[in-house]
């Protein structure tokens, strides 16, 4: 048995595509299929929304320029700007001996410590 493909419909009956019901000018309800978007990008520490990071399918984002995908600072696309400032402050203090490893809060330890081990 050959599989029949209808134009505008997904090949398999998956839930990867989003269904939208629309009424045509000829008073007929038709289902339209749309591609789903990815989830919004979130900070790994505070779970706040990341600004300057576009949201969409991988193909759409790959077509963008590199400078449009993420901001140009360290931890871009991973942490929000507030959390990166806290991490970099602690890194600087630890490097020049103003604080010790005990003083670092637990949730930021993974991001601060790697530089001190070197």
């Amino acid at each position: 048995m050959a599989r029949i493909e209808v134009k505008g419909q997904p090949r398999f009956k998956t839930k990867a595509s989003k269904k939208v019901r629309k009424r045509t000018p000829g008073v007929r309800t038709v289902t339209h299929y749309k591609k789903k978007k990815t989830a919004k990008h979130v900070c790994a520490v505070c779970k706040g929304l990341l600004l300057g990071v576009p949201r969409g399918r991988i193909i759409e984002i790959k077509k963008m320029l590199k400078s449009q995908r993420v901001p140009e600072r360290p931890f871009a696309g991973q942490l929000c700007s507030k959390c990166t400032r806290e991490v970099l402050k602690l890194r600087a203090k630890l490097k020049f001996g103003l604080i010790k490893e005990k003083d670092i809060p637990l949730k930021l330890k993974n991001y601060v410590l790697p530089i001190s081990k070197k």
Partner: protein
Amino acid sequence: MIGSVCVKIAGRDAGKECIIVDTISKHEVLIDGNTRRRKCNLKHLQFIGKKVELRKGASSEEVKKALESLKITIEKKAPAKIKKTRQEAQEAQKVKKPEVKKEKKGFKLFGKKEDKGKKEKKPKEKKVAKKKTEKKEG
């Protein structure tokens, strides 16, 4: 304020060491060092608590020497790209020889098929099933 060593927290140069060279206003200063030489908001700097003797508006070479005295490694910047003039670009093109395309051996695209005489098929030899003859002893 001038000569104090700090680390930049925000922006492209975040996490790099620098020294304040000049004050512009209440909130803004001129910085230099591992970062680019540029004005910066004081909120974007983390002070370390070290100070170096520097004159106001010191050059970037003087700042680098000051950083070396504190045993801070200086990052080497990539050399700037030199733009070619039109004449140089044209000469460079002349030197390159045009590549000659080689035809692939044993593979012709859109080529006509050669007329070959039909091969005479050999008659297949019929396999003769050998009958097993078992002689019964006894």
